[in-house]
C-alpha cells in the first residue's frame, strides 16, 4: 500500500471537480470495493484520497418530467425500498434484493458499483436494460454517456481520471413495461454472480415489444443482448418464442471458464434465466 498525503471530503460537486482537476485523486464512496482492493494491492492510492459521501447533490432518487435521476451515492438499500424505483424501475429493486447482505447493501453505493466496472456488477445489469445514461462531471462541465457504452473491459471505463460519476439518468419506461432480474450463485446471499440477466418489454395481446435485454458476468463487461432483443421484438410470446430466445441468449453471451463456473454452465444459466423471466412477464 502506498502513501496518502491528503484527505478531503468536499461538500459539493464543484469542489470535488476542482480537486480532480488539480491532480491524481482516489475517489471513495462506500469503500466496500476500495478497502479490499487497496488492501490486497490490486489498486494503489493516489496522493489524495477524496471521500465524496458528504456531497448532498449526489444523493437520492428524484423524478423530473420523464427522467428518473438516481444520485451516484444512493445505496443499494435505498434502491431496494425507494418508492420511485418501486413504481418505475422495479427490476432495479429486484436486483437490490439479491445483492450481498444487509450490511453491504447499507454501505454500497450504485455509483461505486458502476465505477468498479466488474463484469459481474449486479447494479449495472438492470440499469443497462432500462437504457440508463451516466452523468459525468468535471471542472469543464457535465457529459452523459450511455451505460451500455461506458465499459471497455474489466475495471475499465471511458470515464477520465478527472471525472466524477454524479448520477444515473433513465427515461421512464413505456407504459406497461414489465421485466425481471435473474442472478445465479451457489447460495442466495453474499455471492458474486456466475451469470445474471435483466430483461423486459411490453406484452400486449400476447405480443412482446419494446424489448431490452442485458447480461452480467458472461463477458469482459456487462453487455446488451442485441440478438435476443431482435429475436423477441414483435413476436407472439409463446413456448416456441421463449425457447428460441433462451437459445439466442445462450449463444450471444461470451463467457469464460473461471473459478466460479465454466463457460458451458454460464451459457446454460443464461438460457434458463432468460426463459424464466419471459415466462414471468408473459
Amino acid at each position, binding site marked *: *500500500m502506498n*502513501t*496518502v*498525503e*491528503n*484527505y478531503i*471530503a468536499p461538500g459539493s460537486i464543484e469542489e470535488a471537480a476542482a480537486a480532480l482537476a488539480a491532480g491524481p485523486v482516489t475517489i*471513495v464512496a*462506500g*469503500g*466496500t470495493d476500495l*478497502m*479490499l482492493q*487497496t*488492501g490486497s494491492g490490486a489498486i494503489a*492510492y493516489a496522493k489524495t*484520497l477524496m*471521500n465524496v*459521501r458528504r456531497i448532498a447533490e449526489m444523493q437520492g432518487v428524484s423524478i423530473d418530467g420523464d427522467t428518473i435521476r438516481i444520485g451516484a451515492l444512493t445505496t443499494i*438499500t435505498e434502491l431496494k425500498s425507494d418508492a420511485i424505483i418501486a413504481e418505475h424501475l422495479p427490476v432495479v429493486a429486484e436486483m437490490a434484493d439479491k445483492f*450481498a*447482505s*444487509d*450490511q*453491504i447493501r*447499507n*454501505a454500497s453505493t450504485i455509483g461505486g458499483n458502476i465505477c468498479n466496472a466488474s463484469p459481474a456488477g449486479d447494479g449495472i445489469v438492470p440499469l443497462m436494460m432500462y437504457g440508463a445514461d451516466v452523468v459525468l462531471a468535471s471542472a469543464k462541465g457535465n457529459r452523459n454517456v450511455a451505460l451500455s457504452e461506458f465499459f471497455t473491459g474489466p475495471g475499465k471505463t471511458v470515464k477520465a481520471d478527472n471525472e466524477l460519476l454524479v448520477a444515473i439518468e433513465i427515461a421512464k419506461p413505456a407504459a406497461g413495461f414489465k421485466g425481471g432480474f435473474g442472478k445465479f450463485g451457489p447460495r*442466495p*446471499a*453474499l455471492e458474486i454472480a456466475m451469470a445474471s440477466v435483466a430483461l423486459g418489454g411490453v406484452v400486449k395481446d400476447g405480443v412482446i415489444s419494446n424489448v431490452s435485454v442485458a447480461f452480467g458476468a458472461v463477458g469482459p463487461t456487462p453487455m446488451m443482448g442485441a440478438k435476443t432483443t431482435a429475436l423477441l421484438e414483435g413476436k407472439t410470446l409463446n413456448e416456441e418464442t421463449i425457447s428460441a430466445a433462451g437459445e439466442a441468449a445462450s449463444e450471444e453471451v461470451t463467457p469464460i471458464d473461471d473459478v466460479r463456473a465454466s463457460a458451458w454452465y454460464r451459457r446454460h444459466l443464461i438460457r434458463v434465466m432468460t426463459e424464466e423471466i419471459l415466462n414471468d412477464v408473459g
Partner: protein
Amino acid sequence: MSAKIDIEFTVNGAVKQVTVPATASALDMLRDQLDLKGAKEACGEGECGACTVIVDGVSVCSCLSYAVDFDGRKIETIEGVQSDEGLDPIQQAFVDYGAVQCGYCTPGMVMQVKHTLDKNPNPTKEEIQRGLEGNVCRCTGYSKIIDAVTEVASS
C-alpha cells in the same frame, strides 16, 4: 505512513476525538485507538459480520468502512447496548436461548439484530433470516439465534 486526520464523532453517546491515518479501517480505529474490542475482525472482507456497528442508524461492516468517514457521525457499538438496568433484551434472549457458544460472532450478531428490529419490530422468520444473511456463526447452527430473535420480536 499516510496522512493523519483529526476526526470527531459520537460513540455510544460520548463525543470522541481521534487522529487516524487516512486509510485506516473504522474497525482498527475502534479497537486499537478507542479500546472498544467488542467488534471483532474475522474475515476482514465483509463476509462474516463480526465487525458490525451502526453508523447514523444503519448497520455496516466496520472492517470495510474508512475511519475518516466516521467524522461527524453517530456510532453505536456493542459496548453501548447494555443499559444501567442490565442486559438489553436482545442480549438476554441470546443468553436464555443458548445462542452464544464461543461468542466470537455475538457482538456483530447483536448489532445486526438490533438494526433489523429497529427497522422492522415484527419480522417474520424469513425476515429475521434475511436480516442476518451477512453474519456467520461457526458454532450454533443459527437455530438458537433465530429462536432468540423470534422471542425478542414477539415480546
